């Protein structure tokens, strides 16, 4: 199943999780949608099967626009399966009836045919012995496996998985993940929203990094995880703890700045040495460089990135003019305090120059 999204937009009265999403999902694609919380990942999924109809833009499924044809969407929706974060099993029915219901009601199968399909799907997720149990008797992991079996029983061409492991205890994540990995091998088109980077890497052939309502970066897992092209993607996939501050004029409030960076330093786990050097770099920029060398119309921006795995801190200093005197001054101020420092010219709207230091 091929899906095209054109200028997709979804607004709620008090939020606009999706502002402009454009993408083409090809038949057989397995796409992992990742990104920070609240950036509309789930909303994107719910727009694709019209649970939350988009407020703007178009969706084409196999070349047919569904956004202007809500009435006939019911039949098409049978070809799109969805697995929910909260399972949503029908609590008044047994496991086997949960799977059989749509087959007998919508596909008009006989009860025997429906049962045969249902039990086969249950066997695939290893729960055939729970056929007559009620959902409330199952663990979270089992419920999600039943829910996947229920989705697969309808033989969908596209499967949407909305954070399938987020509501599970850590001990149950694996059993559901292995079911999803098996599912990925069947060649069905899949879109999965997940916070498990490991799972995203393992099953997908494409990653959508969603941020602030748009697909900020779209690439293969290797590219997005190992060599992200854009800054926010990099910070997200490396799980970087970022501190940002922008000096606009030299009469800024030092107290405000100091309280912000102190908070950042104290809230992140750092070795005592790094803490001390980071603090002194922060202070020197504000007390030496900004008051003495920054001209009235210039802007200086600093970004500190902490990698929680290596415990290393990378410091980026952006400067808005390429005056060589100022560069020399900054290098002179910072180099005694950091282990390495490199400088380079950049082409950016706001900045001409960047210094990268490792602390």
């Amino acid at each position, binding site marked *: 199943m091929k899906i095209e999204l054109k200028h997709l937009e979804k607004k709620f009265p008090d939020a606009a999780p999706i502002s402009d999403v454009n993408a083409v999902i090809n038949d057989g694609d397995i796409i992992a949608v990742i990104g920070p919380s609240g950036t509309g990942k789930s909303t994107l999924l719910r727009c694709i099967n019209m649970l939350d109809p988009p407020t703007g833009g178009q969706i084409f499924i196999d070349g047919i626009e569904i956004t202007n044809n809500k009435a006939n969407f019911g039949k098409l929706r049978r070809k799109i*399966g969805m697995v929910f974060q909260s399972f*949503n099993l*029908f609590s*008044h029915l*047994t496991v086997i*009836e949960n799977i059989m219901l749509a087959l007998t*009601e919508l596909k008009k199968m006989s009860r*025997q045919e429906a049962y045969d399909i249902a039990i086969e799907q249950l066997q695939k997720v290893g729960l055939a012995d729970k056929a007559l149990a009620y959902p409330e008797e199952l663990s979270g992991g089992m419920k999600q496996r039943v829910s996947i079996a229920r989705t697969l029983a309808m033989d969908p061409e596209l499967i949407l998985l909305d954070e399938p492991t987020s509501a599970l205890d850590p001990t149950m994540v694996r059993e559901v993940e292995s079911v999803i990995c098996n599912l990925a091998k069947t060649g069905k088109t899949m879109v999965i929203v997940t916070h498990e980077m490991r799972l995203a890497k393992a099953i997908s052939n494409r990653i959508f990094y969603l941020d602030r309502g748009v697909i900020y970066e779209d690439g293969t897992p290797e590219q997005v995880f190992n060599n992200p092209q854009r800054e926010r993607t990099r910070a997200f996939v490396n799980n970087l703890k970022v501190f940002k501050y922008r000096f606009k004029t030299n009469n800024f409030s030092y107290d405000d700045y100091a309280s912000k960076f102190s908070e950042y330093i104290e809230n992140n786990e750092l070795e005592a040495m790094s803490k001390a050097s980071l603090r002194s770099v922060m202070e020197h920029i504000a007390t030496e460089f900004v008051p003495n060398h920054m001209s009235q119309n210039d802007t200086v921006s600093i970004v500190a990135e902490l990698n929680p795995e290596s415990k290393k801190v990378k410091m980026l200093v952006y400067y808005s003019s390429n005056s060589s005197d100022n560069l020399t001054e900054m290098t002179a101020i910072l180099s005694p305090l950091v282990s390495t420092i490199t400088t380079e010219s950049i082409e950016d709207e706001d900045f001409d120059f960047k210094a990268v230091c490792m602390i």
Partner: protein
Amino acid sequence: MDFSRLKKLICPFVVMMLLFGTMIPAAATDGEINSLEDLKGMKVGVLTGTVFDEITQENIEDVEVCYFNSNSDIATALDEGKIAAYVTDAPIARSIKNAHEDHVVLKQISSEDYGFIFKKNDSQSAELCKQFNEFLAESRENGLLDKIDAKWFGKDESAMVIDYSAVENGNGKTLRFATSTSTGEPFAYMKDGKRVGFDIEIAVEFCKSYGYNLEIDDYDFAGIISAVQSGMDDFGSSCITITEERKKSMLFSDPDYSGGTVVVIKDVCAEALATGVEAEETGFFASLGESFVKTFIKESRWRLFLNGIVNTMFITVVSIIFGTIIGFSDYLICRNGNKVANSVTNVLVGIVQGMPVVVLLMILFYIVLGKTGLGGTWVAVIGFSLTFGASVFKMLKTGVGAIDKGQNEAAFALGFNSTRAFFRVILPQASYHFLPILRSDIVTHIKSTAIVGYIAVQDLTKISDIVRTRTYEAFFPLVATAIIYFLLEGLLVLIVKKVQILTDKKRRAPEKILKGIKTK
């Protein structure tokens, strides 16, 4: 429903009632009452809707008037000491004395004329009234009136019957006659399951001589006047005193009987004598047996009770069925947030639930459906269907509201449309939330039908009123009625529980779930 539990519930209740009934002493009368002056500042009972309250206040200084709905209640209240005296018509006082020997007339305070009432300012009614007056004059001349008088005020119990055959299946126009058998002997009362009495026989004789058919509607005393005023009934009577004030709102016939108003008190000496004798002669259980015979066996009164039960159950069950249909269909229309349907429903539910059911019933009976001539039973069915429908609607709203919206989404994602998702996924789950509420609502519902007596329906409560008017005994018929209600409630709850179990999918046996499917 296990009845042993029900028994456990009822037994202590009955025992308590028995104890209280025998132990509470008469309190309102301190000292002897020898004249009207002695009643100053005391409570005096009268029948609601009569003119006795006015007469009482004119004749007794600084008196507190208490209103009752039947003469049997008044007699019981005097026995229990809740009132010091009551004011009523002389003939009624005489018939109460048959059951309560210690009730004695203190003084006759006025003489009154009684007449039949017709609708005022209505040419047809005026015509009918004229006819009736002609009939009265004739009867007075030819001795018919005297004969009737002698019959109902005489001692020959066996003569006190009315032959209805001439006014039941004739070809003439049917007149509807409003009366109240709670008024008591000898004017209008129930005997052997038939309405008899002085006033009723006059109505029958009148219809006979003018070729009308007669249909009798049985109200509370106060209801007679509303029924005639609204045109529901063509004429009415039940020992109605002719007064100037009433003449302003009703058309009175010439008097058919002249009597007087009397003040009745309890003779303390007679009471002491009576209880002393009784204690020696009859034990507690013997008097209970006697009450049982009086209430159920004598004059086959059990038939009346049976009729009352049938009426109560008919109104309850039919209104539950209609109410469920109304509430459910309305919910289906409102389910998807249709604005017009929702606001109309909200207003209707507000109106129906915002007023006492008895007021709703009377508005339906006298005003909305007054001209349709629909009988009280069907008006009650309509009224109670509306109230039950309103509560079914609210119940569904609450029940469905309790279901997680993920259930709907999962059904949609599988390809269900909204209607199918509702019936196959949402409703079965919502039923777990609303069936228990429904069960308690049904018990409330059957109890609330006890007010249909206001619109001339003889349900169980009304029958117990009527029987009490004959026996002038409060305790036994009331307890018996309470027990019958308990049993009826138990029966209905039993049925709902059965339905609940049958529809509860979680209670199915495992082999039933996969019935007809070959499992490997």
